[in-house]
């Protein structure tokens, strides 16, 4: 069961990244170095290729292995960032969470790892601006539909933010008016995860 869920999660996540790779790259060309879509697609292709091997592992180890696969294959800052998210979550959860509270605790550990890796927090126009509110919603007991709404609203809110991290930080005020590509990929992945878990 857990194995099938892991395969479904990897399939859905890599599918959505592949489908939106061009859009992510277009966002990144506006305020980053223009490689986010390509890098994420490379990493999630590698993840899809290793799906059977990963899904055969116990849940926590599977997440860590998936994270390490992204670290080694993405080829940009998003590799260590998404990798740290999954590795942090995998270290915190030996088994698949059964309640919102367990899932929130697991995601909290992952978000903490992203903050440490990126030396950042919410408000800097990054993936954390989606992950932090999503984690808070999960901790408050939100279901998949509310989680998706939270992610979408949080993503939209990055448009008016001014970047203080990454290449977009060089742009200062010029980063305002564009969605953050990392926040966009996080929102896409959260939708994918919600879609799979809702169907269980």
């Amino acid at each position, binding site marked *: 069961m857990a194995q099938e869920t892991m395969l479904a999660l990897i399939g859905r996540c890599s599918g959505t990244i592949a489908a939106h790779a061009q859009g992510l790259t277009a966002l990144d060309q506006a305020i980053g*170095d223009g*490689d986010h879509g*390509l*890098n994420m697609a*490379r990493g999630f292709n590698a993840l899809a290729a290793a799906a059977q091997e990963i899904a055969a592992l116990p849940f926590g180890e599977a997440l860590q292995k998936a994270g390490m696969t992204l*670290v*080694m*294959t*993405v*080829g*940009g*800052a*998003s*590799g*260590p*960032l998404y*990798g*740290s998210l999954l590795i942090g979550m995998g270290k915190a959860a030996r088994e698949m969470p059964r309640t919102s509270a367990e899932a929130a605790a697991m995601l909290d550990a992952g978000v903490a790892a992203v903050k440490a*890796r*990126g030396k950042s927090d919410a408000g800097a126009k990054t993936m954390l601006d989606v992950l932090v509110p999503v984690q808070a919603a999960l901790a408050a007991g939100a279901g998949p539909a509310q989680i998706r709404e939270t992610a979408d609203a949080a993503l939209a809110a990055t448009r008016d933010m001014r970047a203080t991290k*990454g*290449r977009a930080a060089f742009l200062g005020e010029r980063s305002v008016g564009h969605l953050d590509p990392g926040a966009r990929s996080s929102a896409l992945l959260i939708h994918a995860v919600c879609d799979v878990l809702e169907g269980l």
Partner: protein
Amino acid sequence: MTENVSIVIVSHSPDVAKGAADMVRQMVGEEVKVAWCGGNPDGGLGTNVESILRAIEQVWSPKGVAVLVDLGGAETNSEMAIEMLSGGRGANVQICDAPVVEGAVMAATEAASGASLEAVRATAEDF
């Protein structure tokens, strides 16, 4: 030969990384080991953890390794690679907050004098 601190250059562009390493070799000579890496796993612009790990291993010195990086992802990927080094060796590797070309030359010049990793880093960052 007494070991000196080694230098690793990480750029999004393999051409930039190699060019900076060439400058170090010409200006500082062979007393300091220099490795470089650049590019994503597909050969495009970017940086990746695996090649950074390989570069550090290639010039490993018990005296330490100073890493020079260009932009954003180069630093994040280098930090990840340093944490992944086996045997706790990451404690002996430091990223210098310095421009990649000038920093590499300054760091290597200091390293050639037999200076400690801390001194090498400080010299690069002073530039």
